[in-house]
């Protein structure tokens, strides 16, 4: 579609496309701000630290799932939202970092001996922590400069998102006492976005 035509049809849409970062990054922060506001106004219930910590972790996992879903989405529906991978990936990292901060600071008051034991002894924590550490280099290299610098290795480096998602999924599963109707749909979604990569590619123009 010629550019001038797009402008005529939807000037708002074109503007949004150009300046979408300005809209979506703050939008992505609202759950965190909302949680802080709720926390300060007694709206997170009787165990606010726990709810806050878990909600941040859940948002990180949700955004990671959305980030991972964009490639299969294009492949199977043709809808191309790949440009939002950086946005969703960075927001996932942002929430995972806040989640870690809430766990270490709010929940454990930066009690290093407790945290050290957790990090060295408990698989539940080790899985979550490893997932976050894998996202660090991805967040660091999520710019055009790094892409140009690393060339092919950039893609290889960014495939770290797959083990990170698997570890985050196990960490999420272990954060409940049993499998349940809250965790099961998320785990199913993770399985779908990961496994869909192994399905045969739909050939445009083929007769099925």
């Amino acid at each position, binding site marked *: 579609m010629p550019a001038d035509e797009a402008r005529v049809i939807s000037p708002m849409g074109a503007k949004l496309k150009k300046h979408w970062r300005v809209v979506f990054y703050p939008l992505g922060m609202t759950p965190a701000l909302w949680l802080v506001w709720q926390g300060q106004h007694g709206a997170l219930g*009787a165990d*606010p630290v726990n709810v806050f910590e878990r909600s941040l972790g859940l948002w990180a996992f949700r955004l990671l799932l959305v980030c991972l879903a964009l490639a299969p989405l294009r492949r199977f529906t043709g809808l191309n939202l790949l440009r939002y991978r950086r946005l969703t990936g960075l927001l996932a990292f942002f929430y995972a970092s806040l989640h870690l901060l809430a766990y270490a600071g709010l929940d454990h008051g930066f009690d290093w001996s407790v945290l050290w034991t957790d990090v060295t002894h*408990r698989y539940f924590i080790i899985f979550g922590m490893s997932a976050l550490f894998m996202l660090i280099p991805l967040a660091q290299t999520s710019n055009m400069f790094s892409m140009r610098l690393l060339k092919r290795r950039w893609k290889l480096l960014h495939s770290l998102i797959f083990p990170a998602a698997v570890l985050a999924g196990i960490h999420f599963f272990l954060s409940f006492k049993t499998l349940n109707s809250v965790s099961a749909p998320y785990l199913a979604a993770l399985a779908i976005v990961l496994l869909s990569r192994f399905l045969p590619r739909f050939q445009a123009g083929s007769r099925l």
Partner: protein
Amino acid sequence: MVLFRYPRPLPSEITPKEMYLSRRSLIGGATALGALTTAARAAALQTHSGPYSGSLTPTPHDDVTHYNNFYEFGMDKGDPAAHSQDFHPLPWTLEITGLVRKPVRLDIDQLLHSPAIEERIYRMRCVEAWSMVIPWDGIPLASLLKDADPDPKATHVAFESVLRPSEMPGQNEGLSGIQWPYVEGLRLDEAMNPLTLLALGIYGETLPNQNGAPIRLVVPWKYGFKGIKSIQRIRLLDHEPPTTWNRLASDEYGFYANVNPQVDHPRWSQATERVIGSHSLFGATRQPTLMFNGYGEQVADLYRGMDLRKNF
């Protein structure tokens, strides 16, 4: 211009209004006020202060009744209060059978009007590393077991909760892998300990559904999941009975489940606990967990010579 400053307590330090109102020792009519604010079906109990009421400050009534683990009504802490309205705790019969000389069937009305009901203000430590202080009203389990006259061969006590999928939505959830009804157990000497209580109420009123109506177990030196709710059957046995959480994950939840800050859960430390009731994200408190939840003086002898790491 500020001429004079006086020290102001933090909001978290002020006793909530509904809590000081519901202290029956202060005002006789206060229970009526408490009943207005929560659990419409709760009825006042004739109760008196027991020997273990202590000087603990109870967790606000609203938190005790809206922050619950009762998976029969759902897994979220708010689910039991939200989804237990269809449960019918009355009429109810409690059976004490098995290795006893005088099996008994107790009608709940009889128990609810028993002069033996006393108030016990106990610490409650959940295995998930949070804690409350709850003013229970109940009857020591030992007195009911004595009435049934245990056979000398009896070594353990098994408790069984209720199976009512039509009234308990959580029992229809197949994903959890939990086998219903919920079952728990104690060694006979633990069951006979004076601290062990069959609770019929909290805060001077009959138990709300979400807290285990009409009758539940309270074993204050053990993690909360030992406190089986809505008990229908108590059986005396000559062997250790299976228990729900142990059956599900034996490496995480032992038969004894004594509160022990030195023995961690595989997924988290048990050395400290989050105190429920602050409602403030940045003002929440964490406190050290006490051995046997602070009841070592009364119960440590039960476990003398035992390896508590192995028998966790």
